Every structure is written in structure tokens, then in C-alpha cells.
């Protein structure tokens, strides 16, 4: 039962990263690939009706995590207090910037909104990457299962633990580059003309950086968290996840929708590889291994998890249905005019 919920939460988080990932990535590239006001509006139009729904996956994923693994939710959210609060502020700023871009035109407010949108998107990608790095590396859990990490101490590895150390910064940079690539492929798929060409070129160049990062982070992750290697040695069928990621990485060289889907597969493959490698831990302890949070000691009681399965499966199927509906209604390339109604 705990394993089922571990998988469901992992799927929710992967769905969030794939979906909100492309609009974060589009935000990162926004100021660089779109040169004119019309092009910038086209980038926004490509995510306009979708980003809000994508962000719902973060909320629903968080809710599911809370429900299934309350101890994990309590420990990680309080432990990463400051970075999470900053994530909230960035989400607010980014949301305002997108919404206001539709209401305010002109040479002053338009570019301001663009810059806030771009900066907040980039920082969010970096924060999410750092968070993932922390979960893989482990945190200094105390005997009651809590911890508190400052953002930084002296940036050294293995010394006084902080949210940012060389390993987590590396993962943060990798997340930034990967989501930029994901966003570039989305913008290239959704737009036309010069904008499409520039996005495609950006995606082509970023691909090499992504490929290089994959090699570096794979190598360092297995060094930093030995449990990853143990998982793959104990259950070799798990190599299917890195293989999905690898296939995605290779197919990303294509163009249009296929490249975007390949990038989605790549992200899913990477995240599921991490989940598989970390399992059954959900928050490893960097000190005494016995203090680690696992799916067993962090899960809610059995009855609640069983009842939850009854409503969760139809509920999420409905949600997926709405998503298919929404994405179909906004399928195809966007024109360079703002989306209808704005």
C-alpha cells in the first residue's frame, strides 16, 4: 500500500515537472528567443491558457504527499522553510507578471512584466533542482524526524549541511538547463517564423549542455548517495527508467511535437530513475541512517491510504480527462496576436 502511494506521488510530481516545466522553460527563454513585442506575446499565448492548470499539479501533488506521507510533508516543508517561502513568492510574482502582461501594454510595463516572468521562472527552475538535490543527498534529521537547513553556510560538501552545497548547486544548474531545453522545444512546437527558428536553434545548442549535465550528475549522484547504486544492483529491472531517459535524450534531436514529447519522456525517465533509486527512502538522513524517513515510517495509517485509493483513482482520471480536453482545445500553433479575450 505504501509502495502504491509512493508511485502515485512520484507520478504526480513527474506530471508537474513535465507540464509546468515547459512553461517555466518558456519563461526562462522568453527574453532571449522572442525579440519583438509580438513575439513575446506569442510566447505568452502559447502558455496563457495552460500554465495555471499546470501549476495545479503542484498543489494536487503537494496535497497527495501530505495525505499519504504526513511525516514527510511536515519534516521536509518545515526543514526547507526559507527556500519554500521563496518559491511561494516567486510563484506569486510570476503569476502576476503573466496575468498583467495581458492587461498592460506599452514600453514601460510590458518589458517589466517580461523581466519578472523571466527571472522568476529561472529562479523557480533552480530552486526545484536544488530541492531535488537535497532529497537525493539527504538532510540532517534529528531524533524526532525534523531538521532545519539554512540556505548556505560555507558551500562545502559534507561539512555543515546547508540547502546549497556543490552537489545541490550542480543539480540546480542541471534543472535550469533541462527546463530551458524543454521550454525551447515547446515554444518551437507552438510558434511560427523567426521565433520558431530561434527557439529551435536554442534547443539545438542547449541539447549539448543537457547531454553533458546528464553524464556529470549521473556520476556525482551515485557518489553522493550510495543507496542509488544499491537499488539498481538489487533490482536490475529498474534500468528501464534510465533507458527511457536516454531514449528521450536521443529523440530530442528531432523537431516539432516529437521532440517535445521526447523531452517529456526524458524528464519522466530522469525523475523516475531518482525515485526508483531512492526507494524505499523518501528523505534520507545525512547522519545516522536509522533516522531516515522511509515510505513505512512516514506514511499515514493503513485505513486512510485504502480509502484514499478509492477516491484518488477516479478523481485523477477525471483530472486527466479535463487536461486532455483543455490541451485539445488549445492545440496547434498560436498566432502572434494575443489569445482571445485578452
Amino acid at each position, binding site marked *: 500500500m505504501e509502495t502504491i502511494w509512493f508511485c502515485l506521488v512520484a507520478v504526480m510530481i513527474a506530471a508537474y515537472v513535465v507540464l509546468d516545466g515547459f512553461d517555466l522553460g518558456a519563461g526562462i527563454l522568453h527574453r532571449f528567443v522572442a525579440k519583438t513585442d509580438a513575439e513575446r506575446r506569442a510566447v505568452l499565448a502559447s502558455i496563457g*491558457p*495552460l500554465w*495555471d*492548470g499546470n*501549476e*495545479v499539479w*503542484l*498543489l*494536487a*501533488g*503537494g*496535497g*497527495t504527499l*501530505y*495525505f499519504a506521507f*504526513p*511525516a514527510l*510533508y*511536515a*519534516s*521536509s*516543508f*518545515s*526543514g526547507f*522553510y*526559507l527556500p*519554500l*517561502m521563496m518559491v*511561494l*513568492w516567486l*510563484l*506569486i*510574482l510570476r*503569476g*502576476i507578471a503573466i*496575468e498583467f502582461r495581458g*492587461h498592460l501594454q506599452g514600453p514601460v510595463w510590458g518589458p517589466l512584466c517580461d523581466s519578472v516572468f523571466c527571472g522568476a521562472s529561472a529562479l523557480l527552475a533552480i530552486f526545484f533542482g536544488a530541492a531535488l538535490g537535497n532529497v537525493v543527498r539527504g538532510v540532517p534529521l*534529528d531524533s524526532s*524526524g*525534523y*531538521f*532545519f537547513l539554512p540556505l548556505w553556510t560555507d558551500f562545502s560538501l559534507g561539512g555543515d549541511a546547508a540547502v546549497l552545497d556543490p552537489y545541490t548547486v550542480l543539480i540546480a544548474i542541471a534543472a535550469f538547463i533541462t527546463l530551458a531545453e524543454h521550454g525551447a522545444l515547446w515554444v518551437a512546437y507552438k510558434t511560427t517564423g523567426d521565433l520558431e527558428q530561434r527557439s529551435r536553434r536554442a534547443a539545438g545548442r542547449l541539447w549539448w549542455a543537457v547531454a553533458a549535465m546528464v553524464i556529470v550528475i549521473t556520476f556525482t549522484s551515485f557518489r553522493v548517495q550510495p543507496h542509488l547504486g544499491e537499488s539498481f544492483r538489487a533490482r536490475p529491472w529498474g534500468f528501464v527508467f534510465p533507458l527511457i531517459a536516454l531514449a528521450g535524450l536521443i529523440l530530442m534531436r528531432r523537431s516539432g511535437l516529437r521532440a517535445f514529447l521526447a523531452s517529456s519522456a526524458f524528464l519522466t525517465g530522469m525523475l523516475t530513475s531518482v525515485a526508483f533509486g531512492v526507494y524505499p527512502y523518501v528523505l534520507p538522513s545525512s547522519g545516522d541512517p536509522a533516522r531516515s524517513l522511509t515510505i513505512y515510517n512516514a506514511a*499515514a*495509517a493503513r*485505513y*486512510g491510504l485504502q*480509502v*484514499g485509493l478509492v*477516491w*484518488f483513482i477516479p*478523481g*485523477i482520471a*477525471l*483530472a486527466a480527462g*479535463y*487536461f486532455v480536453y*483543455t490541451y485539445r*482545445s488549445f492545440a496547434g500553433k498560436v498566432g502572434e496576436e494575443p489569445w*482571445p*479575450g485578452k
Partner: protein
Amino acid sequence: MDAVTVHRLHFAFTVTFHYLFPQLTMGLALLLLILKTMALRTGGEHYHRAARFWARVFAINFAMGVVTGIPMEFQFGTNWARFSRSAGGVIGQTLAMEGVFSFFLESSFLGAFLFGEKRLGPRAHWVAGFLVFFGSWLSGFFIVATDAWMQHPTGYLLAPNGEIRLQSFWGLLLNPWLLWQYLHNMIGAVVTASFVMAAVGAFYLLSRRHEAYGRTFVRTAVLAGAISSVLMMFPTGDQQGKNVAYHQPVTLAAMEGLFHTVNGAPLAIVGQLDLDAQHLDNPITVPNALSFLTYQRWKAEVKGLDAFPPELWPDNIPLLYYSYHIMVGLGTIFIAVMLLAALWLRRGALYTSRPMLWTLMLALPFPYIATTAGWITAEVGRQPWLIYGILRTPDGTSARISAGSALFTLIGFMGMYALLAILFLFLVTREIDHGPEEL
């Protein structure tokens, strides 16, 4: 300030600011649906345009509710970790259900509702509007269910390690506290939306612009407002008061400023609380009325604060007493204003009665104040408990988060929300200024 106080202020500030928006979202969703229904029935452009105007206001308001709502879910984990850990197995259910059942529904169909009118056609567009309404009211249900459980826990089991486990799913969702609290809250949202729509309509009529729309807004809002204001008091407010009387008698005593147990307790209308001397200054009371309202007998015994040990008293009795009286007082005035306006409407004099239109316009902030006061009554009244009778508030915070860290982020939220408030007022006044006419 100690850490517990900062954590409480942190949640109180962010949730109070947040709830300014969903109350209009939920109430306006219903009024929008009424306008859309009228549009379908009359077939003319007038109601369609009226609905489109309010949909634009709705969209801005909705976005504010979303961006201020995300921090609420996060704060359970960030600031109230020990509470989350012990109660997550129960309230995680309702919070996760809100995410899965309401948020996806709302966000998907709001997009269709705002951007898809042409493509969907009038009937499918009505359905999209209905689903937005349904999603937002469902969302309200899950949140009120969470609060109702904290007010009056049901369907749970205390494990030896202090963990609170879900024992009965239906016990959680069919909590007797929940039904009246939910209805009271949702009808309150309709009251807010009615006053907002009436205020905008009155503004148009007084300034002699968009007068056809002004009349539609005032008429729709006064009818909805008259019905909802009455329902607010009876039966929902009355039943909610009985819930408090039966399940939290010490809270009732504090709300009413009743220090001593008496047979035939009076109802205080106004009066200032003197905690040290244990009496009300400058009181105006209705003899025996509290006994009658609570137990339907004029001479029934109502327990005063002296019947309970002080460690069970709510920790901020004056705030509780004043917020409760502000809520009830304003609620009573709302009934009077809306019934009078409805009477004027029936006599055909409302659209030209300047005093009445001025009253409706200037009444705009008061439902927000009443709603906020109502929630303060509920949440301060629950003290000193975080989960009534099970977990005390100081035992629920994140033990590792210092007062300094929490104050830093509280100040951050204050700055961020000040910016949000300015942007919101700017955008909404721009929409109101632009009006429902389409160029």
C-alpha cells in the same frame, strides 16, 4: 514575540488576506450563473454582456485567490509541522481531495469559460460556467470540512504514538458541525457577492453611466442579497450558534461576554469587556434572550466563564467577543438594508432613490468585514485548541523554525500582499470604469 505567536500571526494574516478573494469567487460564481441563465432564457445580448463584464472581474479575483491560496496549503507543513504530522492522516484526506476534485475542475473550465465563449456556443458555455461554480463550491466544502474537523473532531482514532488516524471516512465528511458551518460560509459568500454587484450597479446609476446594466446588477443583487442575508441569520447562523453552545460551551460564554452562570441569561447587544473586573461596561442587553436563543426556554441555565477552568478559556476573549458582535451586528444591518432595497424595488422606486443607491454603494466593504469577523470568531473561539480537545495550539508548530525565521517570512508576505492589493484594486477599478459596454 515568541515563536508560537509569530506562527499564529503568520497564518492569521495570510489566511485573512486570502479569504477576501474566494468569498467573492464563490458568491460571484453563483450570480454569474444566474446572469448566464437569464441570457439563455431571454436570448438577448444584454445579459450576455452583463455576464461577460462580471466574468472579467471574476477572472482577476480568481487569480488573486489562486496565488494567495498556494501559501495556505504550504503553511501546514512549513509552520505547523507537528500538527501536520499528527493530524495529516485525517485532514490530508480533505486537502488532497480538494486538489484532485476541485482545483483541476476549476482551472480547466475557467479557461474554457473565459476564452471559449465563441467556440463553445451559449449552452456549452453555460455548462462551463456551472462547472466553475460547482468546482469552487466543492473547494469550499473540503476546506470547511477541514476546519470543521479541527473545531469538532469526528471519525478518528488516537494511536499510542500520538498520531491521529482516520477511522471513518464518512465520519469525517458527515461531521455534524460541517453542514451548518458550510452553508453559513457559502451563503456568506453570496452575501458578499450580492453587495459587490449591488455597489457597482448603484455606482453606475448614481453616475448615470451604463444605466441599463446598473439596473440589472442592482435588481439581481438585491434579490440574491435579500434571500442570502436572511438565510445567513436563520437557519444557518442560528444552527451554527447552537453547535458552539453544545460542543464548545466555554467559547459561547466568551463570545457573549457572559462571566457568570445564570438562569435566564441576557443577550449583550453592545458593551465593552473588562476582563479584570469580569463585567461589561456600558451594556445594552436583552433580558433572557441568550437562554431562549440557545435552549428555547427563557429561564434556561447558560454556563458562564466561571463554570470552566481558566486554562480552557479562549486566550483572547476581547477579540473573540468583539469579532462575534461585529459579525452579528453587521449581519442584522445587512438584512435591514437588503429587505428595504427589495421593498423599494417592488415599489419601482429603487433605481431612482438616491439615498438607497448611496447606501448600497457605500455598503461594499462591510460584508468583507463581517466575513472576516466571523472567521476570527470561529478560529479564536477554538483556542486554546488547534484541534478541539485533542491538540493545543502551542504543540502544533514547527519546533525547528525560530521566531526570527517566521517573522522574516511574515514581513515578506506583508510586502508581497501589499503589492497584490494595489494591483488588484487597480485592475478591478479599471474594469469597472470601462464598464460592460463592448466597443
